[in-house]
């Protein structure tokens, strides 16, 4: 009996190894694990949660879902192909996540590339955007990696799908601007999963692969990252547990509704309604603080709102409407609505060369117009310019 158990255990181990080996040969583990990038692009970081690995060479996913778009990062972990030796000024791009990062695009197809190549004044345009990273984490990365190396004339801050509520965490903004602070994930789906899933199970944020925080995944670590079978089995268990919990939750809520007992959901809605105005003030505080921060260093700030599709569009509309009059911003959605339809939004900066070019050239033209304006000039509509004489010039 024991002999039989040992025999079949050894056969099982051998079979697992064969299956793992075969899958690794014929499959891209990164596709199976629904990653955005090939392995090791993320390096855990105690205060920033993760950073992109410096001098990384790997692949991104093409729009056909094969991992066949080459990706190279510089010694800061940024996507910055060759600098312009004849540059007369530096410009920095912050935020914009995967869109400004240029996920799924060659270096010569990104929005960053088109901005750089359409400026009247030769400039080094530093792209500090990272896929899957919100604007503030991006800002902290810029502070750590580049701020002390360059003196940019213009900082372009991109908003892409930013949630109004997420600005609450920046409420002690002056402290955060001076020091790094660990940024928690505020995606509501992941919050739900975190609360629902016990420490027994695994956790990964969307398709961006981060250090697992809980239970077995934290202990197996390497195997979870690199074993297709362990990763798949754990995710399947994860999903099954989550779905069962959701069913239980829905049944429970239904029972409460039938019995007419007030639920947490109702209370949450009231709470949310109560703090709606406060969310706005956090956002406005953030905008003013960022602007003051850079203007304190004699650097001009330009905010750009990138087209955001689907359910997140309402966040975009919300925060655009809250923009203070005293800052410069571009509403791409409004400016280019005739050239880019809403169903094309997700393609921009990701898979569509045409749209990247349109947006890149448009932003470059706006930057050029700031450069060429005199003290009394003013551009109309959504690209608002205020007090040009008092604002820092972006020419050298």
């Amino acid at each position, binding site marked *: 009996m024991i002999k039989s158990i040992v025999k079949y255990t050894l056969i099982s181990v051998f079979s697992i190894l064969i299956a793992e080996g*075969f899958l690794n*040969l014929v499959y891209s583990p990164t596709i199976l694990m629904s990653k955005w990038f090939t392995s090791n692009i993320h390096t855990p970081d105690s205060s920033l949660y993760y950073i992109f690995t410096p001098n990384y060479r790997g692949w991104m996913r093409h729009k056909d*879902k094969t991992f066949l778009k080459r990706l190279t990062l510089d010694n800061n972990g940024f996507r910055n192909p060759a600098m312009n030796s004849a540059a007369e000024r530096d410009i920095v791009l912050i935020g914009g996540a995967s869109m400004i990062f240029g996920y799924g695009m060659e270096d010569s197809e990104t929005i960053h590339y088109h901005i750089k190549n359409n400026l009247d004044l030769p400039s080094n345009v530093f792209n500090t955007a990272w896929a899957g990273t919100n604007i503030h984490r991006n800002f902290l990365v810029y502070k750590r990696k580049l701020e002390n190396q360059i003196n940019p004339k213009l900082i372009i801050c991109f908003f892409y799908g930013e949630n109004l509520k997420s600005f609450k965490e920046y409420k002690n903004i002056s402290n955060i601007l001076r020091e790094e602070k660990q940024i928690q994930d505020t995606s509501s789906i992941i919050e739900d999963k975190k609360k629902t899933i016990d420490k027994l199970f695994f956790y990964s944020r969307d398709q961006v692969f981060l250090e697992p925080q809980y239970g077995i995944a934290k202990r197996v670590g390497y195997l979870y990252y690199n074993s297709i079978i362990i990763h798949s089995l754990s995710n399947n268990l994860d999903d099954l547990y989550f779905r069962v919990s959701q069913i239980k939750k829905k049944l429970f809520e239904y029972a409460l509704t039938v019995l007419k007992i007030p639920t947490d959901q109702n209370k949450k809605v009231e709470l949310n309604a109560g703090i709606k105005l406060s969310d706005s003030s956090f956002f406005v505080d953030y905008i003013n603080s960022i602007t003051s921060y850079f203007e304190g260093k004699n650097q001009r700030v330009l905010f750009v709102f990138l087209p955001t599709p689907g359910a997140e569009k309402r966040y975009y509309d919300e925060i655009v409407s809250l923009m203070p009059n005293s800052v410069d911003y571009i509403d791409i959605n409004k400016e280019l609505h005739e050239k880019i339809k809403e169903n094309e939004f997700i393609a921009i900066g990701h898979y569509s060369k045409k749209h990247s070019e349109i947006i890149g050239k448009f932003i470059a033209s706006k930057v050029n117009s700031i450069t060429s304006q005199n003290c009394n000039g003013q551009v109309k509509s959504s690209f608002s310019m205020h007090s040009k004489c008092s604002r820092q010039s972006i020419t050298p």
Partner: protein
Amino acid sequence: MIFTSIKFLIFFIVVYSLYIFFFKTKKDVHYQNLLLVIASYIFYAAWNYKLLSLILFSTIINYLFSLSIYKTKNKKQKKTYLITSITINLGLLFFFKYLNFGIESFNYLMENIGLNAHFSTLSIILPVGISFYTFQIISYTVDTYRDEIKPTNNFVNFALYISFFPQLVAGPIEKASNLLPQITNKRNITRNDISKGIYWITIGYFKKIIIADNMAQYVEYSFQNLESTSGVISLLGLVAFSLQIYGDFAGYSYIALGISKLMGIDLTKNFNRPYLAISPRDFWRRWHISLSFWLRDYLYFSFGGGRVSNFRKYYNLMLTMVLGGLWHGASWNFLLWGWYHGLLLIFEHILRDYRISLPFTLRIYPKVKRVMKIIAMYLLTLIGWLLFRLSDLSMLPLYVKNVFTNFHYTDNCLPIATPIGITFLCLIGLHIIQEIKGNEMIILKQPKEFIYSFYTIMILMIISVSGKTVPFLYFQF
């Protein structure tokens, strides 16, 4: 409801549990058949419930016609019934599948000869499996007419023959002489049936999920980016497509075979290691066997078959293959693919009929000759798959140009070549072993430890990889 979905798994567990339960009842065959008919209609309705009325209409009409054909003694009357039945069936098939193709082709022709006739196409849904069950119905009525079978009086049995869910949407196209007796008679499920059924289902899932779905992404990449990738990638994409279409179709067929076997029903084997074919004729004895035999029995033989002059035989072959190509889809590339295979068959027949031997093969060791033939046939098949895959034939010159003038190594060649190469070698290796041993179930003949390991590997791989349910390619036919 595709076979690789959770929904189907739950559906099958419920149906199979009831099916086994009915074994304990007195009228087990009757209840089982009723259960299977209802389950089959539920299965079909899951695709589109509105089109259920279509299959029901076809079933009722052909049930009545085949009984009329059988009961009528008057030959002329028999023929009238047969022609009417075939006309209705093909009429429905034409309407749903070929009408828009006909309109578009007509408009194109008018435009090119300078006439300004333009007809609008209609918004028609293509019913899933219509090509398969229509051919199955036609085989039934023709066999009845030819007195090869006695049609059944039992409507439930007939309905089950037409709509049996494992083979309803993508074959195999079953002859009544094979399937109907199994439906009508009492069934037994032995341990051997269960063992074979599980084996075929496992193999089917492996071919679909591990081979076909994986190759699909490389096929998509290489064919969508002909202008920007090298000829090496284009060629690799074509090899990947040969694996994809085999894995997809054979995978489905094996799952259908396995599910039926679990119920004590034997369906026709639809694939027999097609990439080991040594000639075009051999290929069509190994690829989509049920369609190949249908084309032979109901088209080729009806046209006169081989019992005519050589020229007439070649004409019959070409016509059969062109119609066979068109069966796959209402598109010029399928027609061209059929024509191409017709050409290959005619060429083989010419070599045989006029006893011509290709000079360079005369003095070669037989086993080496066989290997050369297999390689040559595979390459010829690849050319056919190119025509099959390119729905836009205007891309054909670009593809050819890419392969012949842009054939160089690029950064992404190795990441693409590795999975395709390994998949190809594993599949062909397994087929070679099966071919040499002359036994497809060679794995089940091994010691139980080996079988345990085999199933562990298969199940782990299938569970690990089955994240998305990708539709079967042949569903579109």
